[in-house]
């Protein structure tokens, strides 16, 4: 799907990508991780044909710059920061559906609805005036509705609340089984259950490229029960955000989340480890 050989990119005297070699095959779900400045976004922009570079880059067997329109019809992209677009939700949806060969307006509304965003109700609102989470959901819906062969997302879940994130992960797991994915993220726990390959970048180089088994629990709903040694308001608030029910006067909580969120959930509650008496996930 994507072949990159000896890729170099410089901005002035600064080398941002330094001899990248990577083959991304159909069905690969890659977490592209690394610190700020590692070169993740630059690599994504090269794949999208937005940067010129030295070396060989082909996407679906074609040049991402020369054949950009043909290639971009098959790529869904979600940026890290929602662009400050003045047009309304309805206009943005129409615009995206009109310029993309494979996108239908109804599919965008449906995907948005699946992610928990009622786009019809927000049709007349300016995109810029939506909340961060709503913007992200709409951008994800626009990308997913293309039924892309390659899905590229830069920190896709950063602005989503726990419910939005769960819906988003379920969407990815169910509707894009044949899609090749490239997820850029600072945190591996965000995406670990969605991926089958981890590529780590540092100072413009690939320093780790490992394949991992896709979690069998990723799309399963897990029941969880937590008992604290004493009531904790901060923990209660966090668990409330995860849609957990409080029982037993704030000592005990019960709720559900999908397997893809397991590591994220455990990381979130790990700070209360000393106050947890019992934790059951099944």
């Amino acid at each position, binding site marked *: 799907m994507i072949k990159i050989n000896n890729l170099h990119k410089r901005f002035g005297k600064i080398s941002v990508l330094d001899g990248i070699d990577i083959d991304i095959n159909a069905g690969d779900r890659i977490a592209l991780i690394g610190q700020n400045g590692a070169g993740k976004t630059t690599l994504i*922009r090269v794949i*999208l*044909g*937005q*940067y*010129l570079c030295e070396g060989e880059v082909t996407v679906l067997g074609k040049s991402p710059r020369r054949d*950009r*329109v*043909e290639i*971009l*019809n098959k*790529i869904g*992209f979600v*940026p890290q*920061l929602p*662009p*400050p*677009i*003045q*047009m309304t939700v309805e*206009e943005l949806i129409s*615009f*995206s559906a*009109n*310029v*993309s*060969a494979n996108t239908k307006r109804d599919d965008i509304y449906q995907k948005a609805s699946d992610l928990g965003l009622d786009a019809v109700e927000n049709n007349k609102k*300016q995109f810029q005036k939506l909340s961060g989470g709503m913007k992200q959901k709409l*951008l994800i819906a626009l990308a997913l509705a293309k039924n892309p062969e390659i899905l590229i997302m830069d920190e896709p879940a950063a602005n989503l609340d726990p419910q939005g994130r769960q819906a988003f992960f379920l969407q990815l797991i169910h509707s894009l089984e044949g899609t090749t994915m490239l997820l850029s993220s600072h945190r591996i726990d965000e995406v670990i259950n969605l991926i089958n390959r981890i590529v780590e970048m540092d100072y413009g180089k690939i320093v780790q490229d490992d394949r991992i088994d896709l979690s069998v629990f990723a799309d399963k709903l897990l029941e969880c029960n937590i008992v604290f040694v004493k009531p904790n308001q901060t923990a209660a608030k966090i668990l409330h955000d995860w849609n957990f029910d409080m029982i037993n006067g704030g000592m005990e909580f019960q709720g559900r989340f999908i397997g893809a969120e397991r590591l994220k959930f455990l990381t979130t509650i790990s700070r209360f480890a000393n106050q947890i008496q019992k934790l059951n996930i099944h």
Partner: protein
Amino acid sequence: MNNLLIVTGFDFKESIRAKWFLLYIIVFGGAVILLFTLGITESKVMGFTGLSRLLITYIQLCVAVLPILILISTVRSVVGDREANVLEYFLSMPISLGSYFWGKILSKFMLVFLPIFGALAAAVIWGFLKNLSIPWSIAGFYSLLLGTLAWCFLGMGMLISTLVKKQEWGLGLSILIWLALLLFIDVILIGLMMQHKIIEAVIISVALLNPIMVFRTGAVLLFDPELTSIGPSAYVILDHLGYSGFLAYSILYPLGLGWLFAFFGFFRFKRGDLI
């Protein structure tokens, strides 16, 4: 072609919501209303009266304000989109670079030209209702001159927008260019150059290369075929090119210059990093 029109429509809708467009409408629409309110058609200045007097005043306004307003609004197009991450998102969609760039220019041209043309049309309609004599051919040629001037500065603005890395640099450069061009109109530097007996060919070349000067001379020529009301270099130019020759030049030169700037801007945009 379809995507070009989609981008044009998108950019048009985005721009009419922007504050600069409101300012632009207020300046040109408000100016015409002000000219009517002040009863400028009744006064006689520079030998003109009636609707011609109003149009002459409108020309002076356009000479001074139109280029800088167009530059300020256009110069942020590409570099502004780039800085705001709009470009990254839109160029991840299957839109050709040509559709993006020319769609933007087309939309900006409509945004810039329609209000000034609308104001001009309003003046003509108002004159018609007031039973003033309507200088139809003048109004037609003047619209053409306004269109070509707008196109020239749009091309220039888009070129600057593709060359600079920050909006501030683009705005600074635009103001610098505008000031330089204003300085080199007939009544200021060229008059000074004539006083200092600089070679006539140099003075004429400077005047003929300056699109603001060409527009101003061409526009006044419509009302005053002898150019008695403007400065000295205009006579010399008129002597060399004649009435029709200069009128043709004042339409074709800014038009060609605008295309040249726009093509160079597109070439620069296409050949570099997009964001």
